[in-house]
């Protein structure tokens, strides 16, 4: 299979998956009881029967659900029109966009830190196999896996706020709300410490494990033996030959983990009242704000699918074996 056919297949798969997400979103929205007109104008707005009928026609709700209404809805979504939030009374798309940056900042930092730490600790654990360090690393990964994200957040929140005096929630202190984030960096950093730490601990274990098994596999290859035979020092072997090859699985794992990352963001933003998409999702859930919930789901799901596809492209670019085929 050439690289082009491989990517084409991945592209078709991504498109089909996005379509499935669109269908799920549409179907769930339609099985909700009550009048869809309410979904647009809000639940408690008083409106006459005639006006309601006029709205039904205007939004095409008198037409058959499939295909007319479905295609209509798709067109709306494609134009970025995700409806109006019931609780916030603002367009859903606008609300989502205002929170996206905060979430990307949090999960970006968490992923970056856990990848860097995970790669080095995993490398070391694999290299020093069956030593105390290796056993400790394995135990840590196991316990991190078995710990619920939100509970780890709660513990760090309790410990960090009472012992270190770190802020308990939000993205900046109340007096700095509304100012551009780059003007209040020290305050922002203090608020980011605990949520980022939670995310890092959470992902660290997995990256460490992947890196460890990857390096063990690479170290058993013939070219490592050759490098050693040439008289290279262990560090040179590790740095010049092993690390580069062992890094490949990390790319795939980062992509595969994106869904997991999104889950982590929902829990952690809830615990730390961090003003991002995850917290928004939880608020929409509690307030039963369906347009907001559906919009947030659409955005999260489609981003993860697209990111997975991008990771596939990156992988084929990085791995010469895929290129050669």
């Amino acid at each position, binding site marked *: 299979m050439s690289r082009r056919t491989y990517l084409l297949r991945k592209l078709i798969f991504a498109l089909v998956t996005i379509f499935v997400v669109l269908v799920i979103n549409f179907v769930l929205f339609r099985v909700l009881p009550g009048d869809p007109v309410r979904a647009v104008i809000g639940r408690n707005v008083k409106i006459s029967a005639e006006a309601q009928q006029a709205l039904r026609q205007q939004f095409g709700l008198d037409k058959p659900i499939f295909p007319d209404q479905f295609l209509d809805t798709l067109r709306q979504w494609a134009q970025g029109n995700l409806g109006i939030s019931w609780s916030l009374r603002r367009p859903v798309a606008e609300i989502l966009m205002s929170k996206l940056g905060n979430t990307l900042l949090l999960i970006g930092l968490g992923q970056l830190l856990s990848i860097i730490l995970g790669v080095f600790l995993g490398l070391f654990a694999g290299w020093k196999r069956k030593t105390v360090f290796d056993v400790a690393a394995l135990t840590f990964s196991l316990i991190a*896996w078995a*710990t619920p994200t*939100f509970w780890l957040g709660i513990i760090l929140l309790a410990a960090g706020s009472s012992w270190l005096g770190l802020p308990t929630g939000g993205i900046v202190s109340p007096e700095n709300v509304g100012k551009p984030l780059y003007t209040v960096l020290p305050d922002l950093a203090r608020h980011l410490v605990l949520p980022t730490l939670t995310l890092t601990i959470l992902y660290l274990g997995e990256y460490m494990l992947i890196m460890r098994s990857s390096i063990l596999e690479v170290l058993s290859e013939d070219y490592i033996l050759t490098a050693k035979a040439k008289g290279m020092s262990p560090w040179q072997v590790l740095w010049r030959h092993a690390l580069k090859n062992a890094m490949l699985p990390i790319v795939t794992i980062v992509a595969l983990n994106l869904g997991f990352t999104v889950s982590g963001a*929902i829990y952690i933003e809830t615990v730390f009242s961090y003003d991002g998409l995850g917290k928004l999702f939880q608020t929409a859930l509690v307030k*039963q704000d369906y347009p907001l919930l559906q919009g947030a*789901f659409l955005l999260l799901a489609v981003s993860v699918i697209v990111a997975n596809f991008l990771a596939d492209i990156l992988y084929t670019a990085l791995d010469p074996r895929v290129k050669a085929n």
Partner: protein
Amino acid sequence: MRESWLLFWRNLREFWRVFRHNRMGMIGAFLLLSAVLIALFAPFLSPYEPSLVIRDATGRGLTFAPPAVHGPLGTDDAGRDVWTQLVYGARISLLVGLLAGFIAMFIGSLLGILAGYFGGWIDTLIMRVTDVLLVIPDLPLMLVLVATLRQMELKISPLVVLILVIGLLYWTSTARLVRSQVLSIKERQFVARARAIGAGHFHIIRRHILPQLMPLIVANTVLILSTAILIESGLSFLGLGDPTQPSWGTMLNFAFDRNAISNGAWWFYLPPGLAIVWVSLGCVLLGNVLEEMLNPRLTAHHLEGDVRVRPLEGEGAYG
């Protein structure tokens, strides 16, 4: 019938002989079993009803009382005994996890067998559905599903909704695992022989493939159980549990919502989380060891020259 029971018994004894020397496996089994026993004997472990409000001498509810003032684990925001909540919560957490895990295991095994055994378009279809499910972020999907199901006012318990949603979404890893095993089993000679003497598909699957798969499915179910319990705790923490039948996740939801952290009530938010780690760690340890021990059985069959059906002591793979 009698003979197969004898064989089963012998296999079990043989299994135990190897298993009891495996430290990880024994720790895992201890963690899981102790939680199950606590859940079963909850009424004997606490003198109170879970919803009872503990009162002081003046008749006022004893809220956020530390362990030094009341019971082994103090009281919660409403004055209820935390230890009692914890042991009764074990019932809910384990039950939801078990039932969800069984649904996932059943769907996963069924689809895995169908895909692996029949191949062709059935295989393609099932595997594509699995791929799609793996890419869609699971927590947002579950939250949207649960929210919709609740809004539909179906008059079913929130716990049943949780069980169904977790069970119906977490079968993908089982399906993949079972499929790959079926692919290798169906190439074996004994399947070809059964087919040659005219055995039907159902007979071959039931009599020749399923028995070979069983150990793997058991090990996988234990692993799925840990996922199901973790997911249940998360969904309940986000407020999707049943407040009248609190699981460990629901307890943490209460603790967080009612400011146990700012009140310094560590006895309210630490124990439920530790309990979740206790059980999920137990499942992971036990599941991994079972998988390691039981899997080699799939590499040989008693009709294929090598008569070894059971794991034998002293072999590297089982150590």
